[in-house]
């Protein structure tokens, strides 16, 4: 009965049943962060990408990846924040090479973002632009999970209460330098692990169990 219900919910959420049934602590994770030229998902260009892999409560430092992505045209003020200068960006990898590498994780890993909507819609667009086919991905959004938790206590969220650094602080994680793609990816992965611990303790839970938080979802990477 429960399985049927889960399946219905899964259909509703577009999540295949086998994925929803997966135990969280057994699924390889990939936390990803993109640095962008703007926050407008229709126009933003990717300037750098960072990611790191994890499994359960362990983060594998050997898996850290960071690449500056080559881009052309002018960009808004964002590179100033991220400490990148034109020179770095011109010398970076082509976005195609990074995407080819990233798509190999699509089927195997659960992707982890802080604010998945922004990063995923941009990834969808660049995958489409470069003509690279990426399988659909299952992902966790630590921002949504934080909002789910905060809403238990606040009707209206206090300003800035769900930023990556504030969420980390709330769970007692150490302060981390922000605005570098790899650092933010690492910070996000740690945040997820701490959130999962705070929420579920040691219970062996499945992704389907988190659907009510809206923090877990499944998305096709083709542009609609």
């Amino acid at each position, binding site marked *: 009965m429960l399985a049927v219900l889960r399946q219905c919910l899964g259909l509703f959420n577009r999540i295949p049943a086998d994925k929803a049934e997966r135990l969280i602590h057994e699924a390889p994770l990939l936390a990803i962060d993109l640095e962008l030229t703007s926050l407008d998902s229709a126009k933003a260009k990717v300037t750098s990408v960072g990611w790191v892999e994890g499994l359960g409560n*362990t983060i594998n430092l050997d898996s850290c990846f*960071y690449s500056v992505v080559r881009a052309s045209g002018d960009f808004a003020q964002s590179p100033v924040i991220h400490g990148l200068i034109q020179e770095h960006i011109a010398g970076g990898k082509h976005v195609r090479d990074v995407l080819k590498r990233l798509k190999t994780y699509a089927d195997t890993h659960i992707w982890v973002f802080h604010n998945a909507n922004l990063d995923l819609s941009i990834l969808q667009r660049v995958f489409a632009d470069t003509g690279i086919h990426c399988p659909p991905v299952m992902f966790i959004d630590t921002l949504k999970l934080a909002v789910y938790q905060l809403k238990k206590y606040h009707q209206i969220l206090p300003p800035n209460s769900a930023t990556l650094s504030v969420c980390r602080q709330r769970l007692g994680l150490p302060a*981390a330098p922000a605005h570098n793609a790899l*650092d933010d990816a690492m*910070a996000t992965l*740690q945040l997820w692990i701490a959130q999962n611990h705070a929420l579920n303790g*040691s219970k062996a839970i499945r992704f389907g169990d988190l659907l009510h938080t809206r923090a877990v979802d499944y998305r096709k990477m083709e542009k609609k």
Partner: protein
Amino acid sequence: MSVLPQQVTDFLKTSAPFDQLSDADMSDLAKYASLIYLTEENQDTLLEENAGRLFLIQNGQFSVRDSEEGERHLSEGDYFGYHQLIDNISYPLTVKVDKPGLVFCFTAEAFKRAMDLPAVNDFFHGSRADALQNQAVNDSNSMWLYKALNDVIAGTPVQASQNVTIRDAANVMAQNKVSSLLITRNDKLVGIVTDRDLRNRVVAKATDITLPVHTIMTRTPAMLHQYRTMFDAMALMTERNIHHLPVVDRNSRKPLGMITTSDVVRHQRGNVLFIIGELAKADNLYELTRLSWQMPHYFATHAKRLGDFDIAGKVLSQATDIMTRKLIYFYQREHGPAPIKFSWVVYGSQAREDQTMGSDQDNGLLLETMPDHAEGQYFEALSAYVCNGLAKCGIKLCDGNIMASNPALRLSLKQAEGEAKEWVRQPTPAAIMHFNIFLDARCAAGDTDLFHCLQRLRAPVLKQKIFLAALARHNNDVSVPLSMFQKFVYEKGYEHKDTIDLKVKAVAVINNLARIYALASGLTVPATLSRLAALPAGAGLSTKDAQNLRDIWLFLNRLRWRHQLTNKVTDNRVRVSDLSSIEKHQLKAAFKAIERAQQGAVMHFSGGMS
């Protein structure tokens, strides 16, 4: 491509000894590391998965047992699991998670590679030794002598390679305005050239100044590594009759600096004992006050290591004694000698020799007999002069008027004995509050025999059981600042929310305990540590408990001295947020031990057995 998040490198760069690693060695170490989020629920699995690794805590709090040494309370920046890697013995590892957090796990291979570096090797072997020696006692007599050379040397030493010419070497010395030059081969110290060598071996013998400098240098000169002390340096310089002593790195023998005789003199001047010497030379009130006012500054500059704080109270009390004796001498120089015998008796912290910067003066006069009118006037004027003089020297006047200038505290021997009998007759809580301070007494100036006479008369009176029982019960009224759930209870109504008055809540309680046991045994020494050490067998306090109280007392004393010197205050309200995580653990343990000792004393003295 090997990349690491900045948060990882930032953290490792602040974690001794890995802060010493080059960037390449650092990424080599971190590359094969993993970062785990260790919680009570997952620790069994994670520790098994990471068995045989070195753990470094980034945040969280853990109680760890990883060797035969017993449980250690660890937090940010602490390591565990290294014992088995060093000893090659697999000790069972048990961890209790007090607060979950991130922990780095380094592989055994990466750790062994890092151990090839002397700095890393020293660190881990050193932290083992520290963990073993849990004793707080260090009877250093003068702080400056025990300063590590590392803290004394300033700037890189002037040096030259052994192959430069004598002329070039002399030029380097001239340009740097130094009288000695260190000579190196492959950056290692191999010799030294001094002005005297240039005079005796070059000028006097008309040596060719284009020859390499190693032809005239003193080979394999005396040298010390950076962790030796000023004391070692002085001893070596005296023994060899040399004025320049190179300091080299313990492992690489690379020159780090030079100690010269003028450094020794300068440090001698910058030392608290030096100030005492100077105080003793002061010939008038002006000089005495000028020197006295420098004392806080001297303490702030020269008491750095925790061990220094152990003797700071003693040094300060000795200085106050000297000031007192000087002031009495100045007065008598003007007004003639005292008409009858007297003792200048000091009470409380000065008697116990544990004064701090905030201690005020507590003193009184003991007179041989009842003074007549003229004699009374002499002592009244003397007391006023000395008390005001001490105040001018920075030892505050006593708010409670426990000063010789108060006529009630100028007593004849007979009156003083009668006073003690009065205390014993009615030891009400209010009375104890009043007379407790007089039970720690010491003769700082005047006639010592007179004071000893009083002590002999008083000892049997103060030994009475009912009296001691009242003292023990009174001391039990102070409760240690721990809640039922072992959380700190803070003082209310102060600017900082997390302060504990270590004097009132802890140090004074131990002082009281030591006093009660000392009175019961008829001991007359006033210092808390001396009392604890001198308690005879059967005094009611076991040797182990006495040693434990001594260690706790020293620990608390260190914390309050550090608080006063670093925050430039004279109170004892130590902020818990200023303590390291280990110190918080230790402080809680100390409070619990004090509480047990308080109850033990009540049981011992008023257990209804008498």
